[in-house]
């Protein structure tokens, strides 16, 4: 009877702990699922937010401008030679086309604003196109150019807050003393008048409150301080008074300034910018920006409001009006931003592209791959398959493992000291970058290769040796092919890391503004270049708003490169993977 009790005891002991064991398992599994969920969520958020910012940079508003390539402007020498074509006044040609498009624009300041609808660098692009096809001289040509970056952002709705208000009354326009005087049959302007009037009164009230507070502080302060505070309060009062006067003008006409929302009345062929709003909500004063006053037709009209005041944005009301007119006339169209891929870096965001950085990255990676892969793999093969196990090889092994942990900027310093200062290699060149990055990648490849070689079962080596293969034949015929997937994966991951590296390149002058892409050829290796992560870094620093989207777009392109690299690694692993 002793046996059953022993059995029962074991069983009881196991059963009493069973629940605890299952709970522990459940805890562990849910922790794992939670970890995966969190990392996926973070990744989705990260890529999603970059994609949201960057996707707008892949499209751009293009101005299709008909230009007259008159011979006397394009070909001043009249011989059609390249030298002559290079001396052509291409910016004049562009300016002429713009003036033709908007004949009503006059005055130096207004014209300058008009010519800011595109960047002046486009004249060089026009010249390049004429040089590429001299048959264009003397013809009418539709030149496609990107619209200025701020206007591009405006058209994408990223620069200002705006709205279009519905109108109901018919509009009557009469010439006034300085401005045109507008009269609507219904109170179409009332809402706007009230909005602006109220915000003026609110601002005035705010100033008066601050003035009271300041005066209260002054009453408690020392004499010097009190004097200063009183003066400040007087200032507030004066400004509040001015605002109230502005809001309640004696003639019932509220004057619009550049600190207030811009209100534009648009008709079929013309645009009027309001300069004053009547308190009756029906009358207004305006100046004409687009079209001729005599030709204004009023049956169809609408009110377009730009809530962001002119003083707080980089583009003028008239530039917005011209741009809208160009869109209306079908001269501005949204298209794929091919310049993002066709151009190298530029000071003007609308002309800036990743081509230079992409080519630089490709050239740098070629050098890195060509150096680090063979050296790394053969080092690993020697250490793993041939080298005797002694103190020297142990020392080498420890050092290789340490090299993998060295901060990458140290490799940059090494490159600067050795390759530039000692060997006098060209700065900023993909050759140099590739050398430095391969130093950085080598330990990764060696370690990955050794791990892959170690994973090949010794039975394969023995089998080969048993048939009479030499050590080298055993390695090259059997061990290396079996280790290939692991080697490739390790190498590609090492290369992908090198592709995303910025710090070591900082030291060797690859962080620079380089406006020409290196050629994809032998000479490209020594031409100044930059790489994708550096381009991202430079654009991130760019002053123009439009660089913001381009930074995100460049990140997306780099991510795309990385993902295709990793996909390649997975594909190669699958392809060469053999089971034994």
């Amino acid at each position: 009877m002793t046996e059953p009790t022993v059995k029962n005891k074991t069983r009881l002991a196991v059963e009493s702990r069973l629940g605890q064991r299952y709970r522990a398992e459940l805890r562990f599994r849910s922790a794992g699922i939670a970890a995966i969920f969190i990392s996926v969520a973070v990744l989705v958020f990260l890529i999603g937010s970059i994609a949201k910012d960057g996707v707008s940079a892949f499209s751009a508003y293009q101005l299709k401008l008909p230009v007259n390539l008159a011979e006397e402007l394009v070909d001043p020498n009249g011989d059609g030679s390249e030298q002559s074509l290079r001396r052509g006044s291409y910016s004049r040609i562009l300016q002429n086309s713009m003036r033709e498009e908007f004949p009503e624009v006059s005055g130096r300041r207004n014209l300058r604003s008009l010519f800011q609808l595109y960047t002046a660098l486009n004249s060089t692009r026009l010249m390049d196109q004429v040089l590429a096809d001299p048959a264009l001289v003397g013809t009418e040509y539709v030149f496609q150019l990107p619209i200025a970056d701020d206007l591009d952002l405006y058209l994408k709705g990223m620069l200002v807050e705006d709205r279009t208000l519905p109108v109901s009354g018919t509009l009557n326009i009469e010439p006034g003393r300085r401005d045109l005087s507008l009269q609507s049959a219904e109170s179409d302007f009332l809402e706007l008048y009230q909005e602006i009037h109220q915000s003026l009164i609110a601002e005035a009230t705010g100033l008066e409150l601050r003035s009271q507070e300041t005066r209260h502080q002054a009453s408690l302060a020392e004499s010097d301080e009190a004097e200063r505070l009183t003066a400040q309060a007087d200032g507030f009062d004066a400004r509040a008074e001015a605002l109230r006067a502005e809001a309640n003008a004696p003639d019932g006409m509220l004057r619009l300034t550049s600190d207030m929302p811009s209100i534009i009345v648009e008709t079929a062929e013309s645009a009027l910018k309001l300069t004053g709003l009547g308190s009756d909500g029906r009358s207004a004063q305006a100046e004409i920006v687009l079209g001729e006053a005599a030709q204004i037709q009023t049956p169809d009209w609408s009110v377009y409001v730009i809530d962001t005041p002119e003083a707080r944005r980089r583009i003028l009301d008239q530039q917005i009006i011209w741009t809208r007119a160009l869109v209306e006339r079908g001269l501005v169209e949204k298209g794929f931003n091919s310049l993002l891929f066709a151009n190298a870096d530029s000071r003007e965001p609308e002309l800036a592209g990743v081509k230079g950085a992409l080519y630089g990255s490709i050239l740098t990676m070629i050098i890195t791959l060509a150096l680090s892969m063979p050296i790394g793999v053969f080092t690993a093969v020697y250490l793993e398959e041939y080298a005797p196990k002694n103190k020297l090889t142990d020392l080498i092994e420890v050092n290789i493992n340490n090299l993998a942990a060295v901060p990458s900027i140290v490799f940059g310093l090494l490159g600067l000291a050795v390759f530039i200062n000692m060997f006098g290699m060209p700065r900023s060149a993909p050759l140099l970058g590739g050398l430095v990055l391969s130093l950085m990648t080598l330990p990764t490849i060696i370690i990955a290769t050794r791990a892959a070689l170690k994973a090949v079962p010794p039975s394969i080596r023995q089998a080969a040796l048993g048939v009479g293969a030499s050590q080298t034949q055993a390695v090259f015929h059997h061990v290396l092919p079996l280790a290939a997937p692991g080697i490739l994966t390790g190498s590609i991951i090492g290369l992908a890391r090198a592709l995303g590296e910025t710090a070591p390149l900082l030291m060797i002058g690859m962080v620079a503004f380089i406006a020409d892409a290196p050629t994809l050829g032998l000479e490209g290796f020594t031409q100044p270049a930059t790489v994708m992560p550096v381009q991202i870094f430079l654009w991130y620093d760019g002053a123009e708003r439009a660089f913001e989207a381009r930074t995100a777009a460049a990140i997306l392109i780099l991510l795309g490169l990385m993902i295709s690299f990793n996909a390649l690694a997975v594909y190669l692993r699958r392809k060469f993977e053999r089971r034994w």
Partner: protein
Amino acid sequence: MTAVEAQPTVYHQEIDAENIKVAVKGVDVFYGDKQALFDVSLDIPDRGVTAFIGPSGCGKSTFLRCMNRMNDTIDGARVSGSLMIDGGEVNDPTIDPVVLRAGVGMVFQKPNPFPKSIYDNVAYGPRIHGLAATKDELDGIVEQSLRKAGLWAEVSDRLSDPGTGLSGGQQQRLVIARAIAVNPEVILMDEPCSALDPIATAKIEELIDELRENYCIIMVTHSMAQAARVSQMTAFFHLGHLVEYGPTEDIFTKPRERRTQDYITGRFG
């Protein structure tokens, strides 16, 4: 214990001088400081199966690996003494192990075909040694080797399938085919059936029985029944010493040494 170890080997009979394929005199093997084999001497006849039996760690596999210098690949292994195959000294440093191994095939415990096609597995040896001048010749060698290994009927229609896709017993026969493709004089087998099921084992044993007509086969086995079934000569190893060596029948029916008797009657091991 030392007294027991010092006992000399018991030999049942001399082998005909003309029939000696492998002659071993005073072989010691060291792994670092540890001695794994003590003064082993024996003569192995040609065209027959010689089995090495003994408990685990007795040095029988180590001894087998001396014959094609596979011990060279182990760090810190040292072999001394004389080991002649056909009158040629194996341990002579001027002998290239590659040349030696081309003449001494080896089959391992676990089937280890290359992760390549069946054809490439068998053709590998002839290819690296340059035994076939033409593709036809190579095809001939592959077919013959597979026939000799009794695998041709099963795989002749799928020579390009991976060798690793075969069953365990087929893989082991493939490995034997691979070994005989280079036409060796001696085939070493290190427990060739220990990873196989009884049916596959029976097939391999049958194959060994056929092969002994043409080759000198030396096998290590854990199964005394197997040794009794397929071998003509048996050597019993214990703790690094060759205890007793003689015709299989004699060893199993009239062992002269106490330890041999204890081992084959199952008292230890």
